[in-house]
């Protein structure tokens, strides 16, 4: 039984917002709501990292937040998919000159997928989820 295949059927998402502008976070919630409804794919938002199968990281990593990212990644039960969400998380975007920045997400923890956009449109998010699912199943 392929563990990741099962995982792809039921992805419980923990949302880690580092220094984000809120839009990514709002759009994450948005895909749960009636128009987009990702519960169709078994996606659910959970409050505790211990229940998570995927960690959505949004926003740029600032000095106070980056520390916790590593911690939370360690605390999560594996296998765990990490999704860098939005431009800031993917590449630090316009905050690359901020004095409070640290290093990008993918240099702290391994990232499974990037969903770019500022913020990513819900369609892009769903596309990202589908790609994560495919990747977990080994189709990509």
């Amino acid at each position, binding site marked *: 039984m392929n563990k990741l295949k099962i995982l792809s059927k039921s992805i419980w998402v923990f949302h880690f917002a580092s220094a984000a502008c809120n839009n990514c976070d709002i759009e994450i919630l948005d895909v749960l709501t009636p128009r987009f409804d990702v519960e169709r794919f078994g996606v659910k938002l959970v409050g505790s990292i*211990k229940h998570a199968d995927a960690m959505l990281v949004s926003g740029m990593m600032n000095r106070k937040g980056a520390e*916790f990212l590593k911690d939370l990644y*360690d605390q999560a039960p594996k296998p765990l998919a990490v999704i860098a969400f939005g431009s800031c998380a993917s590449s630090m975007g316009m905050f690359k000159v901020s004095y409070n920045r640290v290093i990008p997400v993918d240099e702290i923890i391994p990232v499974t997928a990037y969903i770019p956009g500022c913020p990513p449109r819900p369609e892009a998010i769903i596309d990202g989820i589908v790609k994560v699912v495919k990747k977990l199943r080994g189709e990509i």
Partner: protein
Amino acid sequence: MNIFLPIIFNLIVAFVLFITPDWKKPLKVIAPILAFANIVIGVYLLFNPNIPEKYTAWILWDNLTKLVFFFIGFFGLVLSIYSAGFIKKKLNKYFSYFFLTLASAYGIILSANWIVLIIFWGISGITLYLMMQFNSGANLAAKKTLIILGGSDSFLILGVAVLYRLTGSFGILSSTWSMIAFVCIAAAAFAKAGNMPFHIWIPDCADKAPPPVTAFMPASLDKLLGIYLLARIFSIITIPPVVKISVMLIGSITIICAVFMALTQHTAKKLLSYHAISQVGYMVLGIGTGNPLGIAGGLFHMINNSIYKSCLFLGTGQVEKVSKTDHLDKLGGLAKYLPITFTSMLIASFAISGLPPLNGFFSKWLIYQGVLAATAEQYPFLSILCLLAALFGSALTLASFMKLMHALFLGAKKYPKGAEKKFKEKFSLVFPQIILALSCIVLGVFAFDLFIKPMYGNLTLTGLWHPKMAMLLIVVGLVLGALIFLISRIKIRRVKGFAGGEGLRPDMHISGADFYEGIENGQPFKFIYGLAEKKLFDLYEVLKAMAFYVIKLLRYLHNGVLTNYLSWILAGGVIILVVIWFM
């Protein structure tokens, strides 16, 4: 062997120990051995009772006696082991009182004569007073205990006197109904067992006395004796239904009130002591039904309660021994360091909350059926209310024990490194707990074979409950769980706790002590608890206050001025004259 042997043996042991010097090390071994010898004698006598012909009139030897007879020896053994590990100073005196208590307990249950019973009854009260003094600072509580128990003795004497008028003999014989005799003797039984309204000595005693003493007397022997007396009086007097229902109501009120008090206590021993009271309520309720089912339940509950309650007290003693406090706010997270104490206390607290398939459930189950049977006979509504009080009481019991277990053993509290050494469990303290906790399970699962069949033969139950099957299924389920664990090849990894990302800090430990803060501070409970805190429900304190008030009044009159006395005398004389005139 002679039936008097247990009494004589214990009396001799008590006397010898009293005059021997305080050899600590040998005494620690000898005392448990003596207690073991005692139970060996007891078990032998249980199967081969040898009652000399000429004393048959003086000895009671029926099922009730046998039951209590065995358990007195049992608790003697278990608690002597624990006491040997716990008590530090004046061991010879302590064990002397200990065996004296055993002797008096045997005396009470064996005697078929009220006078003998009263003498032993008094002795057991005094030994408790003496044993409580082994903790410094227990003087006041000991005094209170002695006054209340002594007071109840006088009730007992009064009751016996009335019975003597009715039957013309001091033998424990069946008699016609007498309200005064019943009330007096029941009051003595209630005081000994700690039923409301004579419960007030138990919290003070438990708070101040050493835990093995609390476990030995108020938690086990006093319950056995008090309920024994109540059961005895129920067996010799035919009780009218009104009195039965009143006894049941007193029992249910005790259950609910005491458990509500227990819910909000902030020290472990006080919390347990209120449970010691509330559990008496169940026994009284069971016996109060007056039908065989209820009485069987009450008696079985008496045994069970003594077992798990002493287990709980012993566990608390262990906790107090290592952490030097029993204040719930200051404790937590001890399960790691005291695993055996934790497990046995957990079992005992499940048993006291009446979770199937443990012994507490079985005896409560009998009591409920007894009460249900009683509803068919008289006062259905009130009986149902009693039943509900008992049922809800066990939910409340559960709640307060969850609080206790959480506050003592679980939660996020961390201890510094090296605490393992400090918090070590001692064999002599742990062993009795294991025995008691195992008895909880064994008596629960094999209740039919061990209790019902020998005592009642074929008791007809309206509801059957197969603890053996349930136990089997639970074991099957646990095995199943373990199998699933193994099949799915689960890896277990220890990580930091999750509290939103930030590290857990010492001040984030939520203590069980605050569990019922909401109830405590919500109306109308705040008002009632406020009154309870002022000791307005404490008969002893109220009477004491009244006595002081009267004395103050007298003192005001007694001011030492001669003319005042003269005028009082004059006024008295005039009143007497007037009264005589109109007669």
